[in-house]
C-alpha cells in the first residue's frame, strides 16, 4: 500500500528528484546503475583530450615545427595514415588532434554505448528482474523509453565532458595562433561523438531485441570497428572504398570541427539512424515476448573441445569461442595490414624524405619490409587488443565464481589450488589459440605479397606474452581479492599501458616512466628483434600471478 501511494504521488507531482531517485523510476535506476561508468568514461575522455592537446602544443611549440609536422603528415602515404582522420589544418593544435585522435574517441564512447544499450533489457531479462519490472503498473513502452532516456542522459554527460575539455584545452593549451578551439568547434565535436555513440548503441539495442545480447554486441561491434577500419584504409586500399560509406564513420568523414571544418548536414543521417534504431528497438520490445529471442545459428564445438574432462579443459572450452573471436579479429586486421605492405613500400620509395624519417626512428632495421610495416602499424594496436583479449579470457574464467558455478565445482574433490592452476593453464591455452589464429591471418597476408613469413609470424607471439602477463595479474587479483574485479583490472591496465605509451613520448617525460609500461620491453618482434627483458617479465608476471592467485584463493572465503 505504501509503495502504491508513493508511486501515485510521484506520478501526480513529478519533479526532478522524484524522477531521478533510483527507487522511484526506471530512469532513476538506469542512471544509478550507470553512475560509476559515467564518471570513469567522462573523466577518461576529459583527461585524454586535455593531455593530448597539451602534448601536441608542447611538442610542436614553434611555427617551424608545426610546418615540419604538416609537411610530414602531408607526405605520408594513405596507408600510413591508417586509422587517423583526414589531414586538414594539422599545423594547428585542434587540426592535429582531429587528424590523429579524432576517430579514436568515438570508439571509446561507442563501445560503452554498445555494451550498455545491449544489456539494458537483455541482462534484466536474463536475471529475471525484467519480469518484475514488466509486471509493475508501467507500460512496456514507458519502461524501454525510460531506459533509453537514462542512457541518453549519461552519453550526454560524457559528451559534455568532451565539450568542456575541448573548449578548455582550446583556451588554455594553445601555444600558437590558430590553436584556439572555438566553442562551436567543441560543441560540434562533442555532438558528433555523442551521436556516433548512440548510433552504435542503438544498433546493438535494436539487434539485441531480436537476437539476444551476445549477437547484438558482436554485430554492432563488428559494424563499428569495420566502419572505422574501412573508413581509415579506403584511401590506401581502394577496394574498401565502396564499403566505407556504409557506416557513420564514412558519413561524417568530412566533419572535422577541431580542424575548423564543419559538415553539419552529415550529422543528420546519424541522428536519423539513431532515431530509427531506437524506434525499432522500442517497438520490438513492446511487441515481442519478454525474455524470448531468436537464436542465431552458430556451429557447436566438437565434443572434445567442449572440455568435460576436467577443470582446465572446461575453462578452456568455456573461453574458446571468445579466444577464436579475438584471434579472427586480430588476424583479419593483421592480414589487411600485411597485405598492404607492398603498396606501402612502393609509396615510400617515391618519398625519400619519409623513408629517411622512418630509418631515423627505427635505425638498423628493415622498416620497409612486411615485418617493419607490421611493427609500425599493427603491433602497438595489437598489444591493446591482446590486453583486452586477456581481460575477457580472465573474465570467462573468473566468471565461474561470480556466476555461482564454483560453489558446486569446489564441492567436488577439486582443490582450490588446482582450480586456480587449471584456470591459469586454460587461459594460457586460450591465449595460444588467439595468437595462433592471428598469426595465421598475418601469415596469409604476408604470403599474399610474397613477404618473409618468419619475423611477422613469430613476432605475433609477443602479443601472447603481453596477454599472458596481464592475464597473470588478473588471476592474482581474482585469487587475492574478488573475481569480479579481475577482468576490469586487466582492461584498465591495458588502457593505462596505452596511455603511458601515448603520453610519455608526447610530453617528453623521463624514459623511466615509459619503462614502466610492459609494452616498451619487447623490442621490435615483428622484425625479429626481441628484447629478452620483456619476455622474462611477461613470464614472471604470468607464472607469478597464478602463484599469487593460488596463495590468495586458498586463504579467502568463496563468494556466492
Amino acid at each position, binding site marked *: 500500500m505504501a509503495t502504491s501511494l508513493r508511486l501515485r504521488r510521484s506520478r501526480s507531482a513529478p519533479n526532478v528528484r522524484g524522477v531521478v531517485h533510483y527507487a522511484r523510476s526506471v530512469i532513476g535506476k538506469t542512471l544509478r546503475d550507470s553512475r560509476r561508468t559515467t564518471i570513469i568514461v567522462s573523466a577518461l575522455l576529459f583527461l585524454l583530450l586535455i593531455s593530448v592537446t597539451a602534448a601536441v602544443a608542447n611538442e610542436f611549440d614553434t611555427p617551424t615545427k608545426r610546418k615540419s609536422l604538416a609537411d610530414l603528415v602531408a607526405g605520408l602515404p594513405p596507408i600510413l595514415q591508417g586509422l587517423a582522420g583526414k589531414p586538414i589544418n594539422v599545423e594547428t593544435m585542434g587540426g592535429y588532434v582531429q587528424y590523429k585522435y579524432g576517430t579514436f574517441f568515438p570508439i571509446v564512447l561507442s563501445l560503452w554505448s554498445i555494451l550498455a544499450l545491449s544489456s539494458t533489457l537483455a541482462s534484466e531479462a536474463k536475471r529475471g528482474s525484467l519480469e518484475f519490472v514488466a509486471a509493475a503498473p508501467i507500460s512496456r513502452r514507458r519502461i524501454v523509453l525510460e531506459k533509453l532516456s537514462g542512457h541518453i542522459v549519461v552519453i550526454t554527460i560524457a559528451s559534455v565532458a568532451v565539450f568542456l575539455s575541448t573548449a578548455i584545452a582550446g583556451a588554455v593549451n594553445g601555444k600558437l595562433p590558430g590553436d584556439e578551439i572555438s566553442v562551436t568547434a567543441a560543441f560540434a565535436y562533442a555532438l558528433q561523438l555523442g551521436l556516433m555513440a548512440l548510433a552504435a548503441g542503438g544498433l546493438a539495442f535494436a539487434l539485441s531485441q531480436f537476437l539476444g545480447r551476445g549477437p547484438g554486441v558482436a554485430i554492432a561491434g563488428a559494424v563499428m570497428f569495420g566502419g572505422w577500419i574501412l573508413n581509415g584504409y579506403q584511401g590506401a586500399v581502394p577496394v574498401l572504398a565502396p564499403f566505407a560509406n556504409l557506416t557513420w564513420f564514412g558519413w561524417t568523414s568530412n566533419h572535422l570541427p577541431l580542424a575548423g571544418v564543419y559538415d553539419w548536414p552529415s550529422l543528420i543521417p546519424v541522428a536519423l539512424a539513431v532515431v530509427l534504431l531506437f524506434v525499432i528497438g522500442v517497438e520490438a520490445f513492446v511487441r515481442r515476448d519478454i525474455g524470448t529471442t531468436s537464436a542465431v545459428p552458430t556451429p557447436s564445438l566438437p565434443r572434445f573441445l*567442449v572440455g*568435460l*574432462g*576436467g*577443470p582446465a579443459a*572446461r575453462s578452456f572450452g*568455456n573461453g574458446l569461442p571468445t579466444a577464436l573471436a579475438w584471434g579472427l579479429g586480430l588476424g583479419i586486421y593483421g592480414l589487411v595490414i600485411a597485405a598492404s605492405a607492398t603498396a606501402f613500400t612502393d609509396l615510400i620509395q617515391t618519398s625519400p624524405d619519409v623513408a629517411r624519417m622512418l630509418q631515423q626512428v627505427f635505425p638498423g632495421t628493415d622498416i620497409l619490409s612486411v615485418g617493419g610495416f607490421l611493427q609500425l602499424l599493427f603491433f602497438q594496436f595489437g598489444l591493446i587488443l591482446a590486453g583486452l583479449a586477456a581481460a575477457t579470457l580472465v573474465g570467462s574464467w573468473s566468471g565461474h565464481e561470480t*556466476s*555461482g*558455478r564454483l*560453489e*558446486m*565445482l*569446489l*564441492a*567436488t*574433490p*577439486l*582443490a582450490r589450488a588446482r582450480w586456480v592452476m587449471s584456470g591459469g593453464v586454460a587461459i594460457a591455452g586460450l591465449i595460444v589459440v588467439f595468437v595462433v589464429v592471428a598469426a595465421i591471418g598475418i601469415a596469409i597476408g604476408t604470403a599474399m605479397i610474397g613477404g618473409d613469413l618468419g619475423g611477422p609470424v613469430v613476432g605475433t607471439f609477443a602479443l601472447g606474452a603481453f596477454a599472458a602477463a596481464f592475464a597473470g595479474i588478473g588471476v592474482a587479483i581474482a585469487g587475492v581479492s574478488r573475481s569480479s574485479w579481475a577482468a576490469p583490472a586487466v582492461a584498465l591496465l591495458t588502457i593505462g599501458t596505452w596511455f603511458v605509451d601515448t603520453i610519455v613520448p608526447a610530453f617528453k617525460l623521463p624514459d623511466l616512466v615509459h619503462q614502466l609500461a610492459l609494452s616498451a620491453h619487447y623490442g621490435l618482434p615483428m622484425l625479429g628483434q626481441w628484447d629478452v627483458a620483456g619476455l622474462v617479465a611477461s613470464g614472471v608476471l604470468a607464472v607469478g600471478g597464478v602463484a599469487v592467485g593460488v596463495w590468495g584463493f586458498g*586463504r*579467502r*572465503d*568463496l563468494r*556466492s
Partner: protein
Amino acid sequence: MTAIIQTEKLTKSYGEHRGIIDIDLQVNEGEAFGFLGPNGAGKTTTIRTLLDHLRPTSGRATIFGIETTVDPVAIHRRIGYLPGEFALYDKLTGGQTIDYFANLRGGVDAAYQADLIRRLDIDPSRKFKEYSKGNKQKVGLIVALQHRPDLLILDEPTSGLDPLVQQTFFEVIREAKAEGRTVFLSSHILGEVEKTCDRVAIIRDGLLVKVDRVEALRDLAHHQVELRFSGEVPVAAFSGLPGVSDVTADEHVLRLRVSGSITPVVREAARYELLDFVSREPSLEETFLAEYGRTAGQPA
C-alpha cells in the same frame, strides 16, 4: 554411533553482519538430519562453512572425522552437494553438465546416473539455459546424487520441483538412508523435513535453538483441543489443569491449548458427558512457528 558431521562452537561473522554463532551440531551416520530456519537464519552459512567454502571465524567443524579446513578435498570426495541457489554452464546440455561433474569425481556408476536421469524425468540433450527452474534443479540433484556419496548435503532440494518429482526425490533419499548413507537437509519447508528426517535442528538469527528428534519436536508443541459438552461448559475444571492455557468457552464448546502431555485433559473430560472431543495434532510447521514465537499467518 559414528558422528559424520561434528561442529564445536562454529562461528562465522561477516563484520557487521551476523553469520552463525557457536553452532554445536552432531549428525550421525545413517541418519537424515533436517536443518530448519527461516530465510537469513544462517542455514546456508553453516553449510558453506562445513564445505570449507567459508572459513570459520572461530570454532571448528569435522566431517568424517576430518577437519573441514585441513583437508576439504578428502571430505568433498565423499559428499554430494546441492546449493540452494546455483548456476551451471548455460551452453552445455544437461547431459554434458552431469558428465562433467561425473568426470571431476570419477567412479560414477553410469547405470545409476542413467537411472536418476530417467526417474527425475529430464531430457539431457537440452542446453542448460533452456531448462525451466525445476529442470535445472533436477540437474543439480543428479550432480549431487550420481556418485552415491556417503553424505548428502542438500540446501532447499525440492525448490522448483513439481509434486510428482518431489515424491521421486523423497524415494531417492529413503533409498540413500536404507543404504546407510547420511543426509543433511536444509529447508524452510517443514513438510519435506517431516517426511524425510529423523532429527531436526532449528537455527534462528545465527543461533542453534533446538536439536531434537522429529517426533520429540512435535511433542513439544501444543495441542489444540475442542470439547463439545451436552450441558454447561465446566471452564474452571479445565483451566487449572497442568499445561492448559488459552481457555475459551462458547455455549457448549470449550477450546483450550495444551502444552506437553494431554493426559490430564483426557482424564478430566472423561468425567463429563461429551458430544465430541477433537484434539488436533500440531504440524511441524506450527511447532516451528511456536518456537519462533509467532503464529501462522503473522508476517515474519
